[in-house]
């Protein structure tokens, strides 16, 4: 693990000590090399997990998420280069430092063995993200967005701290690898019910669950592009990952306690997809679609069947890449038109045909077109939920239709039709932007050739 942690930590001195015209080149190069190293963790040859030390381990669940996290940093740096070009050199270095710090905390969170260490780093990821949203966001609403983001997550996760300390006191260890073997079934008492709620609410807020999702559209919309990318691609998956880990300790109570959250997710999935159909703000549409996709992951994790776990893992990786790509596309529009309103930048296909191709592919991935892993994840979750209860197929089917509807709506509004007058002199697509989209899409397409690495520990 140190071979990833130390280079990531050293990215910070690299940024501060580089010459002012080399900061982006240096940081992008080295973060790409770090992502190459992290790919080696996908070689999961053990049935159980790879145990590196007392502090870190990697698992067929955490290895793809680790690879996603490390792959995202160079993409975030490439995406941020334009909107930071007017800032002073110190501010640029500070931005890169915030991104690197966030990356460091995320890497350690995904590979933490001790659940308290996981908790500390989980909370630590809030600080750089808050700074990125509130300092570098574009509108005045960013302060409100940061507030919602911070306090929703904090209020959700403080009970988790208490629950973890309680489990440490009663069980003696919070080392995840040991806890798997020592877990005893917990009975349905009131204190255990509150324990379950305390453990799960932090991750429910993070995912986000439908009733607790108010922070997400605000934070995603107000954040700068790198903030939106990391929020959508990785921070949401922290919730899914945490849920998959903590439910190991909470059986068989999950079978009864999960019902309200399952109902909320199933209903929320349809509600948020429908809200997408009525959005005028492009980033807001993509944010709500994230809520919808993550609701599927919540359903999958709470059902706790082997297929649903495979689907949840595949869906998390697929959504990470797709959602990040959609935010980059929306940002390329925003940098030209300086507005997120969809109808203000219409008919872009005739002006930017290659970007239109990326838009098409990203939207097709978003609506779970075969053979992408988006489809794999959704299909597995759908089948698992059907076997859990036949009625869910109606809701899942409706969600798939509405997902297709809003993805196509987004495509048609931004690409087709006659251009508005004021977009006629937008700049052509830069190589940087095309490279960014290709770097998002190619891993997604390559994964559809070999999905077994993202199907998680059950596969």
């Amino acid at each position: 693990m140190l071979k990833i942690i130390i280079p990531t930590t050293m990215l910070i001195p690299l940024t501060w000590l580089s010459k002012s015209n080399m900061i982006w080149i240096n940081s992008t190069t080295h973060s790409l090399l770090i992502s190459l190293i992290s790919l080696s963790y996908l070689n999961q040859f053990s049935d159980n997990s790879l145990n590196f030390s007392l502090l870190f381990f990697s698992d067929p669940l955490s290895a793809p998420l680790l690879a996603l996290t490390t792959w995202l940093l160079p993409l975030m740096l490439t995406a941020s280069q334009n909107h930071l070009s007017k800032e002073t050199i110190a501010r640029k270095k500070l931005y890169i430092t915030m991104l690197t710090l966030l990356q460091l905390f995320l890497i350690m969170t995904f590979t933490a063995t001790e659940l308290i260490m996981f908790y500390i780093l989980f909370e630590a990821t809030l600080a750089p993200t808050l700074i990125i949203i509130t300092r570098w966001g574009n509108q005045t609403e960013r302060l409100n967005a940061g507030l919602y983001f911070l306090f929703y997550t904090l209020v959700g996760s403080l009970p988790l701290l208490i629950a973890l300390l309680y489990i440490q006191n009663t069980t003696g260890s919070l080392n995840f690898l040991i806890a798997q073997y020592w877990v005893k079934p917990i009975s349905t008492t009131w204190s255990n019910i509150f324990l379950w709620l305390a453990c799960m609410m932090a991750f429910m807020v993070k995912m986000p669950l439908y009733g607790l999702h108010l922070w997400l559209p605000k934070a995603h919309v107000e954040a700068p592009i790198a903030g939106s990318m990391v929020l959508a691609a990785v921070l949401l998956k922290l919730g899914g990952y945490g849920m998959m880990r903590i439910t190991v300790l909470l059986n068989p109570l999950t079978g009864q306690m999960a019902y309200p959250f399952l109902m909320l997710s199933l209903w929320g999935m349809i509600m948020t997809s429908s809200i997408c159909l009525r959005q005028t703000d492009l980033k807001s549409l993509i944010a709500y679609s994230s809520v919808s996709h993550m609701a599927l992951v919540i359903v999958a994790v709470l059902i706790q069947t082997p297929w649903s776990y495979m689907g949840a893992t595949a869906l998390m990786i697929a959504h990470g890449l797709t959602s990040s790509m959609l935010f980059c596309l929306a940002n390329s529009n925003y940098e030209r038109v300086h507005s997120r309103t969809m109808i203000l930048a219409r008919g872009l296909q005739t002006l930017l045909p290659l970007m239109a191709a990326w838009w098409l592919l990203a939207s097709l991935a978003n609506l779970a077109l075969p053979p992408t892993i988006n489809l794999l994840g959704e299909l597995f979750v759908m089948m698992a939920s059907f076997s859990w209860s036949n009625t869910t197929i109606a809701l899942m089917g409706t969600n798939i239709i509405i997902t297709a509807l809003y993805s196509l709506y987004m495509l048609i509004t931004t690409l087709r039709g006659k251009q508005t007058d004021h977009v006629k002199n937008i700049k052509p697509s830069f190589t940087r932007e095309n490279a960014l989209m290709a770097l998002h899409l190619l891993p997604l397409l390559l994964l559809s050739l070999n999905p077994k690495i993202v199907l998680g520990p059950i596969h």
Partner: protein
Amino acid sequence: HGGRAVSLCARRLWAVAATRGLPAARVRWDSSSSRAVIAPSAVAGKRTPEPAVRWQEDPDVEDENLYEKNPDSHGYDRDPVVDLWNMRVVFFFGFSVVLVLGSTFIAYLPDYRCMGCGPPHVYPRASASRMQEWARREAERLVKYREANGLPIMESNCFDPSKIQLPEDED
């Protein structure tokens, strides 16, 4: 009719004010009809019309068009040399190193999960994925062999019945 005449005059006034450089309120949105009304010939003789009217579709002053100074810009930086090297670095390390070498690494990952690892019962257990590719190849090989030799493809007995030793019945 009165209303239209008034608005016609208002627009004419606006055009004159704009071309004469009189302080007119800077509006972000101009209706396209105002452009249709301004006849350039009406003011052309009096003074050279300066481009003092800002249209919505004019690029923002704060926006820097990287293509202006450097038509070959890749979008990374103002300096053409840094821009070029940044593009090369992203493409080389991003595509040629990580995507190509990384995909090769993953494509050649071994097939087998460790057969004898871990205690007997662990939550959750992944059993079906061990040596899957080998199992498929071995099955195809056996099927081919058995079909070629006329043997049944599968037998209903898992183990050879003659090798099972049952305890004797005790009355």
